[in-house]
């Protein structure tokens, strides 16, 4: 599986490769108010996509549809070769399996405060993926080492800095061996130093060919980390393309206005 992922990463420019995530005609309303409609988005394996746009513009909701934390109203979503949602219904057989393939990292980290860092990474391995205790602990220690937190493994979340907590959250999401990672504004609760820590970890993951989708307000962060940017406004994709193109040379007036507003210091 891992080799396959790496292999397809090298071929990510080829158009006919199976995308890691394929979203077609996706539609969602809350209480009759359209959040987004007609969203088509292919995320090739190994690509790092930033979704940018106004608050309340449906970016987070769109991303939460990818692991079905949110149920869309229509359209379809496929993860790799499995269609998980089509025409108003969930089609994946096993929601737990899907969530093992699609990891998620939250804005407020959402670590389990009653457990230490290492236990946070162990829990789902044992109870969602039925991995044995010893192997789960070993993998947790390895992952925490990988995100530079081996010495903090026995600490409780409340004793950790925001950057440390977010790195534990990334290790926790990685523990189930996902093929896609979702990041919901992963750095908006962090100071610049912590943002740098998270950025370093995401770069490491990118090197290994991990497919990542992130929602962010921070355009410098989007530029640093992603190779593809999608601008959403009014529930539609207005523009998408290579990060440098969309952020530096936007074609659409609305993108340009957004970029100009958010690139300027607040």
């Amino acid at each position, binding site marked *: 599986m891992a080799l396959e992922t790496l292999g397809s990463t090298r071929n990510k420019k080829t158009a006919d490769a199976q995308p890691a995530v394929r979203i077609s005609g996706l539609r969602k309303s809350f209480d009759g108010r359209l959040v987004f409609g007609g969203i088509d988005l292919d995320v090739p394996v190994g690509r790092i996509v930033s979704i940018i746009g106004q608050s309340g513009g449906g970016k987070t909701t769109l991303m939460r549809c990818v692991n079905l934390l949110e149920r869309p109203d229509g359209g379809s979503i496929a993860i790799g070769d499995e269609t998980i949602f089509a025409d108003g219904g969930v089609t994946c057989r096993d929601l737990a*399996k899907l969530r093992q393939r699609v990891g998620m990292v939250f804005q407020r980290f959402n*670590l389990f405060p009653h457990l*230490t860092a*290492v*236990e946070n990474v162990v829990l789902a391995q044992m109870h*969602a993926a039925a991995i044995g205790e010893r192997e789960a602990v070993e993998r947790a*220690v390895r992952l925490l080492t990988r995100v530079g937190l*081996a010495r903090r493994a026995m600490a409780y979340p409340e004793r950790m800095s925001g950057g440390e907590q977010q790195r534990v959250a990334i290790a926790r999401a990685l523990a189930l061996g996902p093929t896609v990672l979702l990041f919901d504004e992963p750095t908006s609760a962090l100071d610049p130093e912590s943002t740098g820590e998270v950025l370093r970890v995401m770069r490491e993951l990118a090197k290994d060919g991990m497919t990542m989708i992130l929602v962010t307000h921070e355009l410098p962060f989007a530029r640093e980390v992603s190779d593809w940017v999608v601008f959403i406004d009014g529930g539609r994709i207005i523009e998408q393309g290579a990060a440098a193109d969309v952020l530096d040379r936007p074609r659409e007036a609305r993108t340009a206005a957004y970029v100009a507003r958010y690139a300027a210091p607040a």
Partner: protein
Amino acid sequence: MTSSLPFADLFQVPWNEYASNLGIGLVRTLGYTVASFIGATVLGLGLALMRLNHLRVVRVPAALYTEIFKNVPLLAIIFLTYFGLPSVGVKLNVFVAGVLSLVLFYAAYLSEIFRAAIAGIHPGQNEAAHALGLGRGTTFGHVVLPQALRLALPGTNTMFVDLIKSTSLLVTISAAELMTEAQLIASETFRALEVYLVIAAIYFAVCYPVSQCLLWLERSIQAGVPLSLGRRRRLGLARALLESGV
């Protein structure tokens, strides 16, 4: 021969003759306490979960129950179950009636404590657990409940000690617990002051250490001391791995 000291003849009851009665009474008191507390915890947790359900038809009966039993005196509930129910053909023995009364009453209070504790868990916790592929049951058991227990512990501990003391109300149905024994001794010896002072001291000697132990438990959990064997084992494993530099 009366002494000039006012308290010199305070203790005249032959306590060693009553020691076994008191011992049996104390054991019964603890029996009522433990049985009622377990029952009240189970019912209270059920009621709390009902009140947090999204369906009105589930929420309303639980809320109604809680309001009724919170606003009726415990003594009235005891009399109703023991003296009242036989007239509609339900004859309960004194232990069952006593435990049932305490369960009904304390479940109402515990459900309020549990409900507040469960509602106090950030919704992000559920979301993170679901995003990790944990099912509803596992999420509740491994994520929500352990955190809710921490929040509920102080209130629950207070209720537990309160419950120990409330078993004394069962004297009214001659439940043969500590206070009933006290009443018997007092009526045999006609020394109410001495007897009830000693009984009060026994209640204190039970309740005070219990509340101190519960306080210690509260503090340990707050300080992050892992209490379950599973957690200790996993943390031990992790520590060994970290030390060996894997």
